[in-house]
């Protein structure tokens, strides 16, 4: 990490995203006191993670990337083992297992759980003792779509209960879906941060509208070129591609209706957080202080 400046407001779901090697996992390891920063000031819930680890760790729930449990440890034993520090292994543990659909799996060995069940168990373990901050590192990796959505719902519920969540993820749809604020890292630095929609506006504002008109009315494409926000119109045979800011979606649609030329294959590509991140991470030659810049 290099000059990382990071603030996570209480009660929010904040996403930490970036390419492999950007320093995300190192950052969360420092936050959890597993690594000691060479320099700088780090306070988590007002405490120093290295010198005040004993006070801090009960306030944090963690799901670590690449960390497992012993194969033969049973679900109920894991809850007792990790919940005991808060006296949370009993009623609270049982209630969390029930909430996450593991109520009937108490006697199942960790090795016999499916990928989704394992991730849900990790989430249960992270939530034992009602921590004020929950750090989730690649929580939904390798989960099927239904399991991901069930974990997302749990995270939203957690946040609604007032818990601050720091979510480290490679899944841009997940960050877009869950996070009120996203921090993008590259080479150990924060390159930009903000609400997902703001990041998209700043770094991937272009929308694309595609449709086919084998025989367009005279003047239609000229009018489309003159519409507000349109940056370019390309035509290849019957295929027409219009690029511009997001306003073109409405303008092009309205124009097509006005000219009574609604195509059967109208397709709109809206920029996503993934587009924004690809743009940010590809810009290696650009300076990293992009915060506030509008493309």
């Amino acid at each position: 990490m290099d000059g990382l400046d990071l603030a996570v407001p209480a009660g929010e779901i904040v996403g930490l995203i970036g390419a492999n090697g950007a320093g995300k996992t190192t950052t969360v390891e420092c936050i959890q006191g597993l690594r000691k920063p060479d320099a700088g000031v780090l306070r988590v819930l007002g405490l120093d993670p290295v010198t005040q680890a004993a006070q801090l760790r009960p306030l944090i729930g963690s799901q670590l990337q690449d960390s497992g449990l012993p194969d033969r440890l049973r679900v109920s034993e894991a809850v007792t083992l990790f919940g005991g520090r808060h006296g949370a292994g009993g009623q609270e543990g049982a209630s969390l297992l029930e909430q996450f659909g593991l109520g009937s799996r108490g006697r199942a060995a960790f090795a016999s759980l499916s990928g989704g069940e394992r991730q849900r168990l990790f989430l249960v373990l992270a939530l034992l003792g009602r921590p004020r901050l929950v750090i989730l590192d690649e929580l939904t990796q390798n989960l099927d779509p239904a399991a991901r959505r069930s974990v997302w719902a749990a995270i939203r519920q957690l946040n609604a209960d007032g818990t601050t969540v720091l979510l480290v993820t490679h899944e841009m749809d997940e960050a877009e879906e869950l996070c009120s604020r996203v921090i993008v890292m590259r080479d150990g630095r924060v390159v930009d941060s903000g609400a997902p929609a703001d990041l998209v506006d700043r770094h991937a504002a272009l929308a694309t509208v595609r449709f086919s008109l084998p025989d367009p009315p005279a003047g239609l494409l000229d009018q489309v070129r003159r519409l507000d926000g349109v940056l370019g119109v390309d035509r290849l045979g019957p295929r027409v591609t219009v690029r511009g800011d997001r306003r073109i979606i409405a303008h092009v649609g309205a124009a097509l209706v006005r000219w009574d030329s609604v195509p059967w294959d109208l397709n709109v590509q809206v920029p996503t957080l993934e587009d924004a991140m690809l743009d940010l991470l590809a810009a290696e030659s650009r300076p990293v202080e992009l915060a506030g810049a509008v493309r």
Partner: protein
Amino acid sequence: MSGATARLIRAELALMRRDPLVLTFVVAFPIVTMLIIGGAFGTTPDRAFDYTNPAHWYVASYLTVVIAATGLVMLPVHLASYRERGVLRRFAVAGFPRWSFAIAELVVGLIVTAVSCVLLLVVALPVYGLPPMHSLWRVGLALAVGAVGFVALGVLLGSVLPSARSAQAVGLLLFFPSFLLGAGGPPPHVMGAAVRTIAGPLPLTLLTNAVRSPWLGIGSGGASLLALAGLTVLVTVVAARRAVL
């Protein structure tokens, strides 16, 4: 002992009961090989066995095989697999005290060793009988020092070896020569001089001498115990530094 350490000990004991490596190497292997080799040499006192009953010679030797199997095979594989799979990191971020895991492994290793030793004696009793113990305190002291030393060695190996597979390979490589030269193989008197020279300073040979000699009344085993105690202190200090979370 903190609540966290007690919870770790309980969980680890439950896992050990379900671990086939423990059941085969620490429980079954010493018992089966003791029965075979004890029967192979009969019960007539023999010069090669310092004029003691060969079956009793092996009964008095095989408790140390249990200790070596725990320290050289079971614990290294167990710990290395924990580190490889990130279980230790999970314990660390969950707020388990830094020393809790090392203490838990020491306690669990000693309990597994003690239970397996008792089982071995229970099996030996009706088959060969138990040899009379000439110096109970010397035997007890040697077993205690040896058990702590080998458990510490197991914790150390498990904390430096990169994976469960490498721990298994290294553990077996250390265990079988030690077993054949220092405890369960032929008695030292029938070994060639070169082999005896190699076998002499092995930790398991030291431990077996320190247990067997005062048990059968063929010596005090004091020099072996002293050397073993030195090794135990050294290994325990290094292991304790390596095994903190």
